[in-house]
């Protein structure tokens, strides 16, 4: 091994020239401000601090980092350097000080830019590194970088083009104080600067069993596996009501209607994410067909998803009434309308409820559009946040565009994610308090 050092040639002059030119270019492109006066002022402040602060305050605290490592061509594994047992509380609390330019959609979970852009979202989730200090594998990543956000180690990853959205990011921030990784999906209409600024306003602190916490984090052997196993629930008997408990609300579905024409609906209640209704609806109230993209799925590590074509599909409009009943004696704040339309189909050979935009019959993969296009009782947009007074009941009529060839396979999905005030018993080992409940559209 001692021979290795002498195995290299000296640096060639052309390489050396290239390095010197790079230095010159860096200095030209980034001129430094000079000013001895400013330097003296900064020095004076620092000296004052040295006098004022007791010596003990300069004791160094070890900060453990989160480290990203490339896996294959498109995978990024998150590992944490080390964790201390006392930094892994069973309960944690997520606090978000929503900055200007954003508003809450579902508290602690999803936020949108006030410009009402469909892709102007920031979606949060939490996970705990497992016993091997692995924080999970990010897939379909085109590029990534390590950085720091508010002194916490962070990884900013650019996603490869995919069926759901193009050019979005994932940012993961490691809160070493509680050994939790905060994950954030960033919509393509949110800049990196906006996203980083948003995440600077997030705190994760130790919680207690009696806190109003959105998340009950417990250790799992494999990150993410337990969540995906418990997140899907299809009842054998179609039950149109789900009770989230005496400390939360009960939600029920009724009055399903499938229509080819929407001219009798209140035009003020349509919302297509900032786009005009004319993009989707003809002047006579019939629905315009949708271009459904075809994608071939990659494994996200060595291969990425690829678009292979598109097909024009006729549309139906599906309406359903959703009723919320507050089971408590206190006001439930910031509830979102949590019903979605999805299709039961295979993805990569596994049957499940999916809501992607692509369909490739050769791959046994299917897709479906799920975004609400209509919410009554609200005339501005369907980022509808409502409060429920003690024991109050509220009903909304919600509408979805639906591919006509998927209607027989479509389900309404009630999403338990982000329901505030829900408390999970300590013995529950579910990583994430998500409950999906599905009701078939056509019985």
């Amino acid at each position, binding site marked *: *091994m*001692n*021979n*290795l*050092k*002498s*195995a*290299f*040639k*000296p*640096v*060639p002059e*052309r*390489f*050396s020239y*290239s*390095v*010197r*030119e*790079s*230095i010159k*270019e*860096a*200095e030209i*492109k*980034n001129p*430094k401000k000079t000013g001895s006066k400013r330097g003296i002022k900064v020095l004076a402040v620092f000296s004052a601090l040295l006098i004022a602060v007791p010596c003990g305050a300069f004791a160094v605290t070890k900060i453990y*980092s989160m*480290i*990203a*490592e*490339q896996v294959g*061509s498109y995978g990024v594994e998150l*590992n944490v*350097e080390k964790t201390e047992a006392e930094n892994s509380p069973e309960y944690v609390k997520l606090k978000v000080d929503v900055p200007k330019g954003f508003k809450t959609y579902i508290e602690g979970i999803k936020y949108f830019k006030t410009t009402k852009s469909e892709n102007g979202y920031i979606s949060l989730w939490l996970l705990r590194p497992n016993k091997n200090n692995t924080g999970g594998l990010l897939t379909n990543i085109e*590029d990534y*970088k*390590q950085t720091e956000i508010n002194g916490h180690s962070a990884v900013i990853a650019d996603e490869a083009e995919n069926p759901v959205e193009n050019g979005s990011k994932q940012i993961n921030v490691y809160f070493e104080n509680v050994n939790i990784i905060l994950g954030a999906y960033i919509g393509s209409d949110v800049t990196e600067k906006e996203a980083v600024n948003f995440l600077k306003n997030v705190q994760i602190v130790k919680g207690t069993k009696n806190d109003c916490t959105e998340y009950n984090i417990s250790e799992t052997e494999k990150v993410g596996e337990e969540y995906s196993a418990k997140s899907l629930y299809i009842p054998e008997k179609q039950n149109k009501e789900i009770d989230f408990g005496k400390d939360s609300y009960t939600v029920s579905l009724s009055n399903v209607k499938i229509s080819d024409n929407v001219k009798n609906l209140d035009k003020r209640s349509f919302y297509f994410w900032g786009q005009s209704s004319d993009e989707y609806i003809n002047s006579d109230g019939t629905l315009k067909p949708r271009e459904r993209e075809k994608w071939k799925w990659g494994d996200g590590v060595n291969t990425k998803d690829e678009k292979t074509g598109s097909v024009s599909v006729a549309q139906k409009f599906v309406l359903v009434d959703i009723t919320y009943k507050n089971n408590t004696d206190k006001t439930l704040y910031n509830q979102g309308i949590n019903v979605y339309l999805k299709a039961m189909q295979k993805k990569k050979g596994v049957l499940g409820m999916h809501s992607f935009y692509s369909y490739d019959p050769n791959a046994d993969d299917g897709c479906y559009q799920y975004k609400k296009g209509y919410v009554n009782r609200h005339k501005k947009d369907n980022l509808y946040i409502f409060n429920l007074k003690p024991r109050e009941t509220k009903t909304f009529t919600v509408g979805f565009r639906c591919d006509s060839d998927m209607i027989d396979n479509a389900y309404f999905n009630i999403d338990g994610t982000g329901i505030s005030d829900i408390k999970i018993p300590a013995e529950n080992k579910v990583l994430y308090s998500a409950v999906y409940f599905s009701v078939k559209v056509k019985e």
Partner: protein
Amino acid sequence: MNNSEFERLVLKNEQTLYRVSMSILKNEADAQDAVHDAVLIAYTRLGSLKKEEYFSTWLTSILINCCKKQLRMKKRCADIGEALPDAASRDNPYISVEIGEALNALPEKIRTAVILHYVEGYPVKDIKRILKIPEGTVKSRLSRGRELLKEQFDLKA
């Protein structure tokens, strides 16, 4: 840190920049591009460097990330049918062909760790910081690198 200080430190590490980038990219044109990007990034991020004594490990860390980015871009081009360039003589940084072949045959992650430790002389704790991997991983890559190099030299003998 002023400009002349920055220039002095970068040139002081020139040999490291050459050896590390060439061992990863195996191609002088790509190595020059990676070093160019690393120098620009380092200059703009000087504010994040806590102590001058860490400059070498810090710059090497930036360079390795730039090299990885180059590799990913090259791989994409190769996937759509563009052939990777053959290594010409100017792309061979090794005096000893034998050692060069042995190092090039190592898997990229192991080769990088071996170069940083046995050629550049970085201790394990510095390599941990440069590559942002746990200390145990550094040691296992070095150990594996020694095994593989020994196998190759034993075979040739």
